[in-house]
């Protein structure tokens, strides 16, 4: 019995095994998995047409930013040196990103994870900003509102329930600004490292 015989016997022995699980069940499990990941995200009604907007938040003042550790499990508040995520009024979420010369040490994955636990899907980048390659989904002004900044931080209140279906937030964190836009989950995005480059219909919340 040579190597070929052993391999042939193995193949033949297992040839009677067939996967019984229908592909529809895989899709259903995928949907369930996604719902769990989004953790309570309530899908909003279809977005109305409107102008694309990018919010630019200015720096409130100098402050040191340290690298963030991975966020702990759970949906409660996450307070780290570089940023914090906390439940806000009316089911909203408050994101505070501390600004300063060490902004590049911010861990975008930790921010994304913390927001996901509040049901807010996001693309978080440091030193660059991604926006929809074509028309941005409408409704950003209903989703993000400027928060009360403190201690040289950028604060924003995010209403995850107001996000149009199939969209996520793009948050670009720069030394001098935090830029936000809505992008589609599956749409193409265009990323830039220029903090001052804006799409049409920009809204400056403070000074930006």
């Amino acid at each position: 019995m040579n190597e070929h015989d052993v391999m042939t016997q193995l193949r033949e022995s297992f040839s009677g095994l067939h996967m019984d699980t229908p592909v529809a069940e895989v899709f259903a499990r995928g949907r369930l998995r996604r719902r769990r990941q989004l953790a309570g995200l309530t899908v909003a009604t279809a977005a109305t047409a409107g102008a694309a907007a990018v919010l630019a938040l200015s720096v409130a003042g100098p402050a040191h930013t340290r690298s963030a550790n991975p966020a702990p499990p759970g949906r409660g508040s996450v307070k780290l040196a570089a940023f914090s995520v906390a439940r806000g009024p009316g089911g909203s979420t408050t994101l505070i990103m501390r600004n300063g010369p060490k902004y590049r040490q911010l861990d975008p994955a930790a921010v994304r994870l913390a927001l996901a636990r509040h049901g807010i899907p996001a693309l978080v980048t440091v030193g660059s900003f991604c926006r929809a390659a074509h028309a941005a989904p409408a409704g950003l002004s209903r989703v993000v509102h400027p928060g009360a900044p403190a201690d040289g931080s950028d604060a924003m209140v995010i209403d995850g329930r107001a996000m149009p279906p199939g969209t996520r937030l793009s948050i670009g964190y720069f030394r001098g600004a935090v830029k936000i836009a809505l992008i589609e989950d599956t749409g193409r995005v265009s990323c830039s490292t220029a903090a001052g480059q804006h799409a049409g219909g920009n809204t400056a919340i403070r000074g930006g």
Partner: protein
Amino acid sequence: MGHQQDEFADFYRASKDSCLRAVAAVVGDRKLAEEQVAEGFTRAWAAWAKVRTHPCPRAWVTRTALNLGVSRWRRLRREVPLADYDAAAPARQADGVDPDLIAALRLLPARQREVLALRIFLDLDTETTAKVIGIAPGTVMAHMSRAIAALRRDLPSAQTKATEVSR
């Protein structure tokens, strides 16, 4: 999304049985293998934009399914002694597969079973198998050679069958 769903469904239909056989050969339990492979495909669908560009998506699913088995084993290890788990496993074999073959496979080290499964059921070459598992091609060849040698030694029924055929 519709196009991606069709594409994934085609991939699923073409790959599900070979993935199941590969995982069943490693875990030796058909039901458990199907559960792990289904979860592997679920994760592949969740990351389809990435997985579809993988050099061998079937290998991605199989590897993910096998990793799920490792996670399960680690959970069980915290709850019951390993010896108990291994002792209970042979009672739940892959349906329709020669019990002697399953027993012989279970005697192999896990890495050898994994190499064997990827090479035989997914038809991966040495280089691809090495990349999927994350070991050197030479190590793949060594595992394969040892696994085959062990099976030739531990499969008396197979030797008997081979002898009968040659007569």
